[in-house]
């Protein structure tokens, strides 16, 4: 079906991705040179390199792209974006793919999603991130196994006064929420 969708005049997956990314239309000019795949610090561990993802997007392979782990392994180092000979905002496109995948629950198995969700939950509650909370909650919910290996580190961090156990909270949380709610409404974010 995917090839059909690529050929039909319906807005393709490519259009969908481009519309969801500021400056995303540069993606049409991709020449598949692989600069992104070669530049990516995690390139060797991704199931598809960014370049391959772009080819799959153009081919309309929606499911395969959205279930890929590559976007979640993007560390936002922007090496690809700076080097791309076609000036494609690759990092931003990875964010777009993350958002679509998360929205449509393609990425439940990704730890990165949980981390992001966690992080944002704390931001909503305090207006600031709370490393200890995020880390502990994250490990409790996702990586129970490895939490013990992390214990000593946590303790060392605490000993060096680098782990505050009390979150700091902004005063005008209501204002922040008002802004974020409006943004979500305007951006059609669930």
């Amino acid at each position: 079906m995917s090839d059909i969708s690529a050929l039909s005049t319906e807005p393709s997956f490519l259009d969908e991705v481009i519309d969801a990314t500021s400056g995303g239309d540069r993606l049409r000019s991709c020449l598949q040179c692989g600069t992104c795949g070669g530049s990516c610090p995690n390139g060797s561990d991704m199931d598809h390199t960014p370049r391959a993802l772009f080819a799959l997007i153009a081919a309309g392979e929606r499911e395969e792209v959205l279930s890929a782990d590559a976007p979640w392994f993007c560390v936002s180092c922007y090496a690809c974006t700076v080097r791309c000979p076609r000036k494609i905002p690759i990092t931003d496109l990875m964010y777009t793919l993350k958002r679509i995948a998360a929205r449509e629950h393609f990425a439940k198995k990704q730890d990165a999603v949980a981390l992001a969700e966690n992080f944002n939950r704390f931001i909503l509650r305090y207006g600031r991130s709370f490393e200890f909370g995020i880390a502990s909650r994250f490990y409790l919910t996702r990586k129970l196994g490895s939490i013990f290996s992390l214990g000593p580190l946590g303790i060392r961090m605490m000993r060096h006064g680098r782990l505050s156990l009390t979150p700091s909270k902004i005063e005008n949380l209501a204002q922040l929420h008002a802004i974020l709610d409006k943004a979500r409404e305007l951006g059609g974010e669930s």
Partner: protein
Amino acid sequence: MTFAYYPGCSLEASSEAYDISARAVCERLGIELQEIPDWNCCGATEASALGYLSGHALVARNLALVDKSLKDVVAPCASCFLNLKKTDKLMKEDRKIGGKLAEALEAGGLAYEPGSLRIRHLLEVVHRDIGHDRIQQAVVRPLTGLRIAPYYGCQVVRPVGDSGDADDPEQPQAMDELFSWLGATVVDYPVKAHCCGGHMTQISTEMSNELLRRLLYTADEHQADIIVCACPMCQLNLDAYQGKVNNAFNTAFDVPILFFSQLLGLALGIEADALGFGKEIIDSKDVLAAKLDQEETAETPSAPRRTRRVSRSLPMPKKD
């Protein structure tokens, strides 16, 4: 000169040392920092992974909260710095989204004029605005004898929404120059702008360990005494996870990781405790004590790439 100051969450907690030293150094160099009132998290690399507009709105609030009489915001954290820059650029260049973000801010009774603020990183401010002469005048305790690996990481140097005069995103020079002004020996650290893995330490230790190993390995190859950072995430990862890396690859890396502002402060004669020393997990006291003032011995092996010049050797391309 007065700057709006955006410390960001990490500097409140895990990277307090950066905050303390940044404030101390700025005070010594005559930079007045005005913390943005009631600033909120910039969302790091996480917020925009879930919400596009909301992710940027989070950042926009901070820009809107800046005292309108100020022209520059300075952020010591790489991620904060980049996010502020990106949102400002987006609002300026993408009218549609800019309008929506303005509307969102309005819902909170705030407003921001895109492009009205210059978003600066602390390193750039020290290197450019203060500059060579004033730094050298201010040095009271040169870092002679100390071999420094300047580590920039990613987000400080990637020119997202920058004007052309930004530092080289691949081989940045700001920290190299700064520390040569301070009398340290700066090693030509080829991975200076490579990635430390950022949040990968939380997601896949295997992958993050490898990324960190590369940085430590090269620093070791170049006999660096210390790696200096301009980003809390870089410092935390290299410092806190160095042990894990050693376990994973049974290596014996033992390189202290400091913030550039801490060493700069030391050179400016500020007391170590006033610079957050001791908060680093790999202790730096001994190295500093041992190396500082030990004039570099002639036969310090230099980077392996340097080809020994034979009479027949071909000239290297001229600089610049």
